[in-house]
């Protein structure tokens, strides 16, 4: 069929536009180069130091989205704490440490860490790439000099650190600038062999953790909220397992719940964010409330008849937990407990709901869930209240862990 010269011209011009200007999909046909290989090359050239995972870290291998192997260290870990968890959901880090104690694992929790500062960056833009990378490297170097491998508690820190690792590997001028700043603070440019999130640690140890279970959770219907900055920000090295949703969704969190024997119910908006929004939770609160209620809580309850929403990150736990009460003003009368995977696992394994899981800081109603799990929270509450009085009278607090030396300066 003949075509007009004009349409040919348009077609040609459009094709050129697509092939030369727009369509770079060709480069995506091959998977992007493994940053760990590039990191090894830089290390061989003496360009960077690498925090290696050693036998002492007792790594366990898993498969990621691109089918690559990722080694998850399970021992001798440096806790890279989350400000949102420590400040607002304290049972999150304490549950992690409680399990590490139970499993006899070695770790270091100390005072020489800053936040990643990425929440503030995503919310306000009042930082920059060099500052984010320098903060990341400073924390990595601190872990490096102690001999412990960094375990990242927060999903945003995890996503941000993967971005910073990749950008540092790709850009010499960024490395040079961060190295210059590290020299000023007496540190070196180091990059971890893997960036590891606590949910990955929990995932690889799920069968050992499930063996600690004392409460039957088989009647509990859970719904999982996968955290955006855990699985969307740098998706290439997120853990996928063909036995979990056919390998079509990230495996961590869902897999520990299944290992514990809980039911994991699907719901149609599983991929949606929680509504945190970084700045929205503070400055656009009506968005955070509306989104978390309409797109997450309501769907989890009405579609899945969920007993509990299980999270794997800081902002999501806060957003889903704190925004339910205000919904009553608009007829959203849901009372869905919200907690992190590790808190749910700790409850199932018999951790004290008040002293260890610190469930009292959560605002959504959790009492019915704990009754259904067979957790005696009433006794725990009474003991906790008595403990508070004892603390007021000057009793020294109980500790799961005390840093070996508070102000350990090594560099």
């Amino acid at each position, binding site marked *: 069929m003949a075509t007009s010269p004009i349409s040919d011209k348009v077609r040609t011009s459009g094709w050129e536009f697509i092939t030369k200007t727009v369509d770079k*999909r060709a480069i995506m046909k091959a998977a992007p180069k493994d940053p760990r290989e590039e990191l090894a090359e830089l290390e061989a050239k003496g360009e960077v130091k690498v925090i290696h995972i050693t036998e002492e870290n007792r790594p366990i291998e898993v498969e990621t989205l691109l089918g690559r192997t990722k080694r998850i260290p399970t021992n001798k870990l440096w806790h890279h704490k989350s400000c949102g968890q420590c400040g607002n959901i304290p049972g999150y880090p304490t549950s992690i440490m409680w399990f590490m104690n139970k499993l006899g694992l070695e770790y270091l929790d100390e005072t020489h860490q800053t936040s990643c500062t990425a929440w503030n960056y995503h919310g306000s833009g009042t930082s920059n790439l060099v500052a984010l990378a320098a903060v990341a490297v400073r924390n990595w170097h601190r872990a490096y000099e102690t001999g412990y491998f960094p375990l990242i508690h927060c999903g945003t820190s995890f996503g941000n650190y993967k971005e910073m690792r990749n950008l540092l590997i790709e850009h010499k001028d960024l490395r040079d600038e961060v190295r210059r700043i590290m020299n000023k603070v007496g540190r070196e440019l180091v990059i971890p062999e893997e960036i590891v999130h606590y949910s990955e640690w929990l995932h690889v140890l799920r069968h050992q953790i499930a063996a600690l279970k004392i409460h039957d959770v088989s009647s509990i219907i859970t719904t999982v909220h996968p955290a955006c900055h855990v699985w969307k920000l740098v998706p290439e090295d997120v853990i996928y397992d063909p036995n979990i949703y056919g390998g079509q969704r990230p495996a961590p969190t869902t897999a520990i719940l299944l290992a514990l024997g809980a039911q994991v119910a699907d719901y149609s908006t599983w991929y949606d964010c929680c509504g945190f929004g970084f700045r929205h939770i503070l400055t656009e609160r009506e968005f955070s409330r509306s989104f978390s209620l309409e797109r997450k809580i309501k769907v989890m309850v009405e579609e899945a008849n969920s007993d509990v929403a299980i999270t794997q990150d800081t902002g999501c736990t806060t957003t889903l937990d704190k925004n339910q009460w*205000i919904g009553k003003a608009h007829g959203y009368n849901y009372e869905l407990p919200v907690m992190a995977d590790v808190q749910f696992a700790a409850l199932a394994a018999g951790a004290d709901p008040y002293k260890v899981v610190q469930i009292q800081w959560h605002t959504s109603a959790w009492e019915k869930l704990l009754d259904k799990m067979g957790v005696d929270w009433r006794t725990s509450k009474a003991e906790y209240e008595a403990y508070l009085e004892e603390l007021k009278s000057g009793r020294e607090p109980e500790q799961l*862990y005390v840093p070996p030396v508070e102000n350990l300066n090594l560099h």
Partner: protein
Amino acid sequence: MSEEAVVTHHLRLDPEDVGEQDAESLLDAIKSDLRYEEVIHGCLNCGVCSGSCPSHRFFDYSPRIVVQTVLSGDAQAVKDMMDEYIWACAQCYTCAMRCPFHNSPGGLVMIMREVAVWRGMEAVHRLLKPYGRVLLKVLSIGNQLTPDMIQPDFFPDWGPKIPWSSTDLAIKRKAIPVYTLQVTTSAWRVSPETSYELYTIYEETGVFRLIEQIDPNLYEVVSDMVEDLRDMIESSR
């Protein structure tokens, strides 16, 4: 602006450029960011990003329009967008996960926000106002959220349990069985040496100068804290 004009990328913006808001200059700053080539590979206007965008559901906001506007080279339209429009993005990166071209509209928005802030655009002062407490914490101790920030006055919509969280806070924090968490004004005990190093990072990367330019009152408070801590550390050496 011609494509040829974008010849080098930048690592970071200069706080001395606050006030430089010429539209072409703003677009140049966006396109010459080190990350620009990594977040934009082209766009066929398919709209998959907007179809899964949480902010698109609740605001007049579309990541597709952000990408298309930047690619169009219409500097004034980009500038207009930086004033308010891009701040609706929830930074969830669902768009990046789904884009068939592996674009990251969320990543592009982040570059645009950074440029808007570092050039001191009008909307930034308004947008950052409710953010002052977070900025004070992150600049002075490196934490972004601390136990004493959860107050009923700030979060009345979080329900009747919030007053419990702020009453007898010091004792309740002491009852958390991890030594580093038994504090109220920071998320965990942050050693002075750590804050000292953080201040050097902020100084060397222009962050302190930026805050001085866009929020002099906050800067004054922070700089007093910085000076006190530095005096303490240096006198102890």
